[in-house]
């Protein structure tokens, strides 16, 4: 069983609802669907520590993470993300 980046994005969108801003999800497995790098941008992260943010993402993708072998995530608020891109 494999998972696609689109599925992960859909799952995040479904749970963040109006807080969903953008995700950048990259399948780094060369197609086996078990390695992902994931960036989630949402203001829901405001005031959260890195640990809390990562736990939040892990929770949203709980079922998927049981199958995914390697997963790395980064999270930004909209402001942090725009500063990062400047």
């Amino acid at each position: 069983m494999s998972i696609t980046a689109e599925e992960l994005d859909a799952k995040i969108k479904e749970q963040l609802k109006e807080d969903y801003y953008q995700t950048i999800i990259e399948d780094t497995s060369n197609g086996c669907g078990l390695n992902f790098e994931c960036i989630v941008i949402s203001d829901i992260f405001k005031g959260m520590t890195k640990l809390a943010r990562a736990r939040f993402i892990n929770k949203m993708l709980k079922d998927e993470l049981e199958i995914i072998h390697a997963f790395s995530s980064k999270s930004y608020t909209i402001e942090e993300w725009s500063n990062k891109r400047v």
Partner: protein
Amino acid sequence: MPLFEITSNKQFTELSSANPSTLKTLFFYADWAHNCAQAIENYKKTSEQYPENEFFSIDAEANPEISEIFDISAVPYYIFIKESSIIKELSSADPQEFLNTYKQVIASQSASDNKSTSKSSDDEEEEETEEQLNERLKQLTAAAPVMLFMKGTPSEPKCGFSRQMVGILREHQVRFGFFDILKDDTVRQGLKKFSDWPTFPQLYINGELVGGLDIIKESLEEDPEFFTQSLAN
């Protein structure tokens, strides 16, 4: 023979070559690692339980030459010697693991000594309750100011993420204790729940989960003094 503290190379050479047929244990520790205090207490108790065997303790940093002979890169570290050869090595911050290993070593030795009617004694292992496990995890995660729960050991990581984490810690000259979760599935599964964190490596500073590789890398990008800062808090 009671527990003996080795303080010089000369002493070490004399003592380690005397009575070759006796099972000897070397225990390497460091003053700065407070997980060692607990381990040494436990080690002393074991030495009293087995007065027929020899027990030595060595301050790994005060005796760099001895540490180098055995390539000690982490403490506490145990080496079991008989007939001038190393029969087993153990790197663990968990006193219970030492005791279990010690019993195994003795069992395997007596088995090879009389080769006949030895009965295995593995039915004495007790099930750990969830409470006991959580208590053990609490102690383990706080066993050193910086504790790394990883796959494999620092000298032989069994996963790329664990390897990178060890690299980062070394690069920043952070002293750390570690636990090889591949050796203990109870800890491996228990810790995921205990810390609400699904993956390894996991890095703990002063008993608190700081994060996995991503968080540590990111924190260091933002603040190169991240480790110094966190340890001071």
